[in-house]
């Protein structure tokens, strides 16, 4: 068996290299850890800046909204809007009533003149009454066809909603009748 020579230097170098390798791995780990920490810190810093920017923007808008000039003008705008709404409510209510007034038939000499003008010579007016939208004529005709003749004339005018004719009575030589004329709305 051949005796080998002991090489201490080589063994020392191997051992030293092993130790150096261990130290390098540790440093690598530490560097990775520090690197990770730095990246995370940078990210956190970015978020911090972003948050601060948001806070600043919020503060700017709050200051704008709270500025006396804006508050005063906002109050004025709100008051104007409220006033307009109230006025529109009043207007709506009034127009609502006005619609009724506009449609309500009106009794006038113009209508009566028309009724008189169409009256045959054989028809006499005893009384006239108006209620709401209807004119009731209490008339007497000297001939049997007088009243119907009159009613027919009134119907042909086509200015009334309806001319109601319900007959007549012969009393003391004259034919008494009541004719009801329904007026059109808005007249």
């Amino acid at each position, binding site marked *: 068996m051949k005796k080998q020579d002991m090489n201490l230097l080589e063994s020392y170098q191997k051992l030293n290299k092993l130790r150096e390798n261990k130290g390098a*791995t*540790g440093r690598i*780990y530490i560097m*990775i*850890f520090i690197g*990770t*920490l730095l990246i*995370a810190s940078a*990210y*956190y810093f970015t*978020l911090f800046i972003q*948050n601060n920017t*948001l*806070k600043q*923007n*919020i503060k700017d*808008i709050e200051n*704008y*909204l709270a500025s006396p000039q*804006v508050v005063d*003008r*906002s109050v*004025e*705008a709100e008051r*104007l*809007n409220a*006033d*307009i709404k109230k*006025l529109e409510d*009043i*207007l709506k*209510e*009034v*127009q*609502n*009533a*006005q*619609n*009724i*007034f506009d*449609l*309500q*038939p*009106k*009794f*006038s*000499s113009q209508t*009566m003149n028309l009724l008189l003008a169409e009256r045959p010579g054989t028809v006499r*007016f*005893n*009384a*006239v*009454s*108006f*209620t*709401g*939208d*209807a004119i009731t004529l209490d008339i007497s005709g000297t001939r049997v066809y007088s009243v119907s003749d009159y009613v027919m004339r009134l119907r042909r005018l086509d200015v009334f909603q309806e001319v109601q004719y319900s007959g007549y009575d012969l009393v003391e030589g004259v034919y008494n009748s009541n004719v009801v004329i*329904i007026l059109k*709305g808005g007249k």
Partner: protein
Amino acid sequence: MTSLSKREVFLLFLMAVIVSASLFIAFLINPMNAEIAANRDKLGALEFQKTQTEINLSIIPSLRTRKDVRISETESALGAIANPIHASEFERWILPVMSKYGAKVTTVNLSETKVATPELLYTQVTPAVYRLLELIRDYNQISVVAPQPLPTSTTQLLFAEYTYMFSVGYESFMEIVDAVKEWETSYFVSDAVYNFSEKEGSITIRVYGVHKLTEQELLDIYKGDLGTHPNDVTGPKGSSDPK
């Protein structure tokens, strides 16, 4: 103390990184992200509010104009309805008319003023429709327009009803009726009767009144209306003398 193997060192390192990262995320990143999200929401709401405010501020001139227009429209609409009136004041308008046309007033009934909704004294006459008529119209391609529904009102106004009975000739009777109509206000002859043989007539006037936008308008309209000779009074709207 036994020395750690490479693998163990690596695992320890990995664990340290994970634990550190978890703590960092849990205690720093997540709260910050939540705060940012909350601030973004708040900023969004404030920006919307700012935009709305800017819009509101920019339309103030047009709102002022719109308010003026509405005031004018409302005053005009209210002006079409007479002012609230007491029966004694009403007589200052109607009696001169009666005098002018030589009517001798015999009986007067004046109601109390109350709150009421305007009543439409109007009947819409609908012509009779039956099956055969419908078929004939259909054959002739005649379409019948359905009548418009009558307006209804829920508006409350001051209301009174005044009835005057008087002796007068027919023509004067109609002149009195016309005079009331020509006031062109919310006073309507709701009932009128004239007897040709007796030469007697009666009219019932429905009086609707409403307050105006400002008290000053009331005063302006009624200026000179009271305490003067009946013949000097103005009409209900203060515009012209009754005939």
